[in-house]
Structure formats: C-alpha cells, structure tokens
C-alpha cells in the first residue's frame, strides 16, 4: 500500500519528527511504502506533491494543529490521529488502515 502522511505538533520541534520516524519505521516493518511530510518549526519539509497524493490509497494526519494546505487531499481517504498516537502505536495505526 502507498501511504502519504503529514505530522505536525504545536511547538513543532520534537514530536513532529518523532511521529514521522515512527510512521516510517512501522511502514517498513509492515511492508508498506510511505512518504511523510513534516510541518514543524523549520517549515514544510519533504512536501507531498500532486503525484504522491494521486498514487496514494490513504492519507494519515498525525497533527496537534490544523494541517496546512489540506485542499491537496480532496478525494483521498484521510485518517486523523493525535500525534501522540503515531508515536505510541504507529504499527497499530497503519495495520488498521486496511487495504
């Protein structure tokens, strides 16, 4: 499965990147492909392109603040979870996406 994700937390300093790391590792373990865009204190990094989104089956938002440029994802199934959840239980979250 091809998954796109956005992580973002209020201070944008640590949790944003921890969540990204956990999602990436979990995806590798489960045999999925994932691209994670981080929206942190340094701005938007590893931005998701139109192509990425078109390829994806599902988007995961692990955010404590509203995701920026959400209109990109219209038409795609979006699963929203707290940032903490992505850190605590990334595998569970991805496994539960189905498909």
């Amino acid at each position, binding site marked *: 499965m091809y998954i796109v994700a956005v992580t973002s937390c209020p201070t944008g*300093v*640590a949790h944003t*990147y921890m969540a990204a*790391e956990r999602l990436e590792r979990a995806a590798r373990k489960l045999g999925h492909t994932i691209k994670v865009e981080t929206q942190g204190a340094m701005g938007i990094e590893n931005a998701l392109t139109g192509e990425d989104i078109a390829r994806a089956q599902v988007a995961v938002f692990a955010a404590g603040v509203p995701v920026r440029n959400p209109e990109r994802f219209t038409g795609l199934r979006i699963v929203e979870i707290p940032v903490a959840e992505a850190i605590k239980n990334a595998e569970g979250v991805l496994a539960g996406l189905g498909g």
Partner: protein
Amino acid sequence: MASRIDFAFPLPLGLHARPASALCDIAVSLGSRITLTNHRTCRQASARSALALVATLTRHGDACTLLVAGEDEVAACERLQHFIDDEWARCDDQVPAAPAAREGVRSLPRALASSRARILEGTPVSAGIARAVAFVLEPWLDALPLAELQQGSVAEETDKLDRAMRRVDTDNGERQRHAVHETERAILAAHRSILEDEEWRGRIEAEIRSGRGAVQAVVAAAEHFAGILRESGSTYLQERALDLREIAAQIVGELAGGTRATPAMTLDAAAICIAPSLGPTQLISLDRQHLKGIALSQGGATSHTAILARAFGIPCVVGVAGVERLVPGGREVIVDGERGLVIAEPTPAVLAFYEAETRKLEAMRARARAFGAEPGLTADGRRLEVAANVGSLDEVRLAFEHGAEGIGLFRTELLFMGRDAPPSEVEQLEVYAETARLAAGRPVIIRTLDIGGDKPIPYLGLPPEANPFLGFRAVRMYAAHPGIIEAQVRAILRASAVGPLKIMLPMVCCLEEVRAFRALVTRLQAELASEGVAHDPAIEVGIMVEIPSVAFVVDQLAHEVDFFSIGSNDLAQYFLAVDRDNPAVAHLYSPFHPAFLRLLEKIVTDAHRHQKWVGICGELGGNVLAAPLLVSLGLDELSLASPNVATMKAAIRGCEMADCRELLAAAGQASNAADVEALLRAFAEARKDRSLSAADIVHLGSGSHTRDEAIKELVDLLHLAGRVDDPDAVEAALWRREETTSTGVGFGVAIPHCRSPHVGIDSIAVLTFATGIDWASLDGEPVEMAILIALREEAGGDAHLRMIAALSRRLMDDEFRNALLAARDASEIVARLLQTGDEGGR
C-alpha cells in the same frame, strides 16, 4: 536690599536629604540669610535647615527662588549660582541601586503555586533566602510609654529635652565609631545631622512653649514633619519619614528612662524579624549573628533600612500588607528575597523547594567566587589583568570579593570631601595601609587628588571658574597647596611599607609636571629615610592619560613614568570637545568614535615600544560590548566597577586575538561610532552561538522523585550555566506545554521542551534517574531519562532546530536510547546528543 536667584530644580530625585545637606553646608559657610521658596508647593525654608529644605517637597523641574540678604550677598549669589549650575547635579551620583523591579507578571514556581502554605507577596529589597523562626516586633515609637511623666515648667521640660538629645547623639556617635560598614556610618551621620537641625529643634521647643511636655512635644514635631513628607508623593521622601520617627523614638526613649525603656530586641536563636516597619538604628541594634531575614509591611527599596539590609546581606522583603498579623510569631517562616515572597507555615513541599533553591544559590555563588579567583585570560591564553576602580575602603573589600586582581584606580577625592579641613597624613595613612593589607600583595594604584572648582571643597578656596574642566585642577593646583599634596604623598609612601602601592598622577598635560612631581616624591622619600620611617624606595609612579597632548609625547614621558592609565571618559571629552552632560551635544560623545580608537591604538603601541604597560580606568574599560576592542588594542590592564569584574573576565575569555584584531581593523576604517557599535554587536551575537549541550547541564543518577522536581532540576541546571535569565518563567513555559500533552513519549524517555524569550542560549539538558519517574507517559511506563530542549524565541537558529529534529528521530531507535542510558558520564551523553547525521547504517 536682597538678591534673588530663580531656577528650575535640577535633580531627578527631588530635594532629598543628600542635596539638602549639600546646600546647607554652603549656606552655613556664607554670612547672608538664604531662603528657598518653591513656587509650586508654596513652601519656604531657611537654607540652613536640611529638614526644612526637604520639607519644601521640591521635585524635579519645580520653579524655585533663592533669596539672599546680607553683607556678602553678591559673593554669596555667585557661589550659589555656581553650585546650582555645576555642583548640585553631582549629589546623586552615589545613590545606591535597588534590585531592578521584576517586569511583567510574576509567575509563581509550580511547587509554590500548588501548595497550601500561606504565601504573601511584597517587594524584594535585599536578595537571598532565609528560613527561621518568626520574631514579631512592634514599631519602636508605639511600644514606648508615651503617657507623660511628671510635667514641669517650660524651662524644666526644655532642659530635659536638651539632656535627652545629647545622650541620643552620644549613643549614635558610639554606634558610628563601631560601625563596620560605611553605609551604616553614613546613615547614622544623617540621623545626627537631623538632631542638630535648627528647624527640628525649633519645632520641638515651640511645642513645649505652647504647653506640651517634652515627650509629647517630640512626638508632635515628628508627626508634623513626617506628615509633610508623607504628603510629598515621592516614595523617596516618604521613606525619610521613617528616619524621623526613629529619631523621635530614641529621644522619647531617653526621656522615658533611658535604655530600660527600649523594647526587647535580643534574639537568642536564628530569627526572622517581622514588623510593620523597622528603623535603621533598630536594625543596627539587632544581633546580626541571629538575624536571618526581615519582612515588613511598610517601607521601600530606598529606605535606609533596605540599604542597610543589602549592605549586611540580610534577605529582606517589604510592602507585605499585614505581615505582622498574618505571620505567627514563634513559628517557622520563609523570606524569599529573590522573588519578594513571605511564606508562613511552609509545607514539606515548599521546604523541599527552598532547599533546592538555596543549594542552587550557593552553587551560583561558589561558581562566581571560583571564577572570580581566576586571572583575566583571553581564549588563546593572553593575560589581561582585570582590576577595580574604588573610592573608599568599603569598595576595596567589595572589589576583592568580586575577584578583582588589583585596584587599578583608588580615587582619593572622597577622603577630602564633606569636611572642614583636609585629612591629615595619619588619617590617610590608615586608609592606604588598610588597602594594602586587604590587597595582600595584589597591585594597588592610588591616584593623587584630582579636584577642581566643580567639587565643593571649601578649605581649598578654589575660585569659581568659567571652565573648571579646562582650569585650575588636579596636578595644576599642587604647587599652590604644597601642604596638602605632601601629606598625601607621604601617607602613600608610608603605607607602601605594608604592601606594594603605586602612585598615579591625574590630568598631566606636559613633561614638566611629571618631572616636578617626581622631584617631590624623591625629596619626600629622602625625608622619610632620614626620619627612619619605612617606605618603598622604588615606588612606581604613573600617569593618567586624559589630556590628548599626552598621546603624542608618550615616547618622552616613557622615560619619566613607570606606566600609563587611560582615563577614557575625560580623554574622549577633551578629544571630541564634547560635554557628555550637555543634552544638546551628548550624542556626539562616544568612545567608539573611529578617531578615538586610532588614538588609543597609538597610545598603547607607543607605550609598549618603550616597554611601559598601559591600563584603562574609564568607563570603556568596563564595557563588555567593547571587550574584543580592549583585547585587540593590546591593553595590559582593565580597571572597572567591582560588580562587573566577573562579567568582564568572562567576556575576555570568549575572545581570540586574531578575530579581535580583524574587528579592530574594521572599526578603525568605519566612518562613525554607530557603525563601530554595530560591528561590536554583530561580533557578540556570533559568539552567542554556543554549544547546544555541555557536561555541566547533564546530571546522571538524579535523585528527583517526581515530574515537578525533575523539571525544576533541569531548569536549575540551565540557570546555573547562565543559559536562562528567568528560571520561573521558563519553568512556566515548560508546564504550559506539559499540560497540553505529556512529553513522556514512551520507551522510558521524556522530552519536556519550550520556546521562550527568557532562554538566552539554545540548550539541551539531560537527567537520568536512579528510579523511574511517573511522567503520565503515553505508554504508561516510568521515565528513566528526561531530555529538556529549551529554545530562544528569535527565529534564525535553523541549525539547532535541525539538530533537534534529527535527535528526536534518533530517540525512536532502541539502540540509540540504550546507548544513552548506558553512558558512563556526562561527556559521553553530550557527545552522542550532538553527533550529526548518523542515520546511515541503521
């Protein structure tokens, strides 16, 4: 036929005790009657009464008139005009600094905010933390038997008053002699001068004549003047009312039966004094061995009591409404002189908090002392002696406490001021000898009398001049006052037998002056030798470089002097032809003027070429921003105000000669002072980019048991390392984040973090715990390691954000976390944290 002088009152703090006494001193020396009228308050006062002058409630800018009537009124007017124009403003130069008021809303530390103890807020006026048993004191005047004893005739009551006032004066005189601190002595002197004040005396006698007994008369007089001062609308004057009530209490105490009437003031164990108010004499009478802290409901930062508390180093909080009712006597109380809090019946949590705070303050003091003991060194090991400027023995003690490596300038003028006759040779010898003893072998430079028509020294009879700073002053007037200068030099020579002293000559403009002085020194040395009096036969003599002409004949002077010290304030003023006190042109004064920097470079280079050392004792030498310039100029010594010694040593430590030389070259090419300042600021900013983490902010095996304790310990680590300026505010910011979602991310790790304007340096601090702590973590497990990330508010610092983002990712890796937890020491943790980009191979 009277003369008048109209003026706007010049001093910012108003006409308070010090300027009033100064005017009084002059008025008393003149024959005419002098009256001051304030046109705003419509009050009048004889200029011979300091009290009456203060009671005019004169504020900055008030329209006033001095009426002068008498035989010498023309000369008197000239003198007074000169005083008003040039001298009065300098009265406030020595006003002691109160701790800067905390700006913004004060955030109570979490441990206190969440406790059930009674926390009272006030204004901190003397730093430190005290914990002891409360001792509640009644205000002196209220505790005395005010009911009249047998009341006699007017003559009898006046006689009783006389005797009582004389006894009080004698007692205060005794206390003055035993006073260790100059501040103590000065305050007692001020009280004694009130006793002698003719208005004070006159008022009491008037009350007696109108039928009151001596006791009631004194109380009524005190109330009369205190009432006026309280109405003044000036906090400073209101605090003087406290002084008056205390003097009244002393007189009444004598009238009522002498010392038997004074309330119990003996402390027999560690105690904290709680009272509505406390007069300075009362404070002095309390046993200082046992007095650990003071909390008052009245009073302010500039009251004499607060000043004494600071001088004695006793934590003190004032303005705590109702403190004498709310704090139970005989029970434990805490006085927090850092935050301005008084805590009655402290709970175990509060006690634990203050134990941690006290340990931290002790650690900070020890660190400052240790650093203070170190020599001034640049980053690449170049020596730059950091000494202190002083004006009195108190300041000498303070200087060495602050880690000064010597006394670079002892201003002797204060020894000559405020007296009717010059200090004798013996009087001066005591001061210089004690200075040499306190210095214990460290260098001491004593500057001979540097005085002119601008400072009021009546016995010198210096005529008023149109241009005192270009006039008959300092070395130029020595030939006209041989007795005075010889006494001073003999005193310095005799004191040099106790320890190494050097002599420095002010305001030299040519070689002849130096030669004449050298000849004088040689003659006096011979005199002392023939008298068999010990002295240093090879005493070093140097000169101040303040007149620009000297800069161009350093080669000639170098043959006659042993060293040079740059008086940058006056040198810059003469060089740029600017009076920095003149608001119209003050903006032209700057020691960063490129021409001035080139001048300094020339002086140092020329002096070194002739193997003579060069120091600096003006304000520029104490300017931390200028540190790289001072280093690159090649100065051998800096002499500055004591409290800045440690900061300056630290600033120099951060300087490398190569960088500093580059900066100096750029500064010399700049076209104005503002550009030079900008260069200096940029240099300082670049140096702020200190390492994200260091061993001194990592603590392995911490004993903190709870999340609260751990967060406080982490912030304290940053505070001790000088990375945050307001630990309470940073702690509050961390808790705001913590309360949104716990930063315990699982896997035994917590990452409390915040961005705050109170963080001075981006930092990562680490604690590992002996036993896991409950952090309400995401996975419910205890936390074994807490990593604090504290960032500055300013954007730009992406490099640090990148490192932290990478660190956050690595913390998700089992191997990395385990390696951190298994680290043997703080340095290993720091090394692993700061490792860049090691993602490969995972």
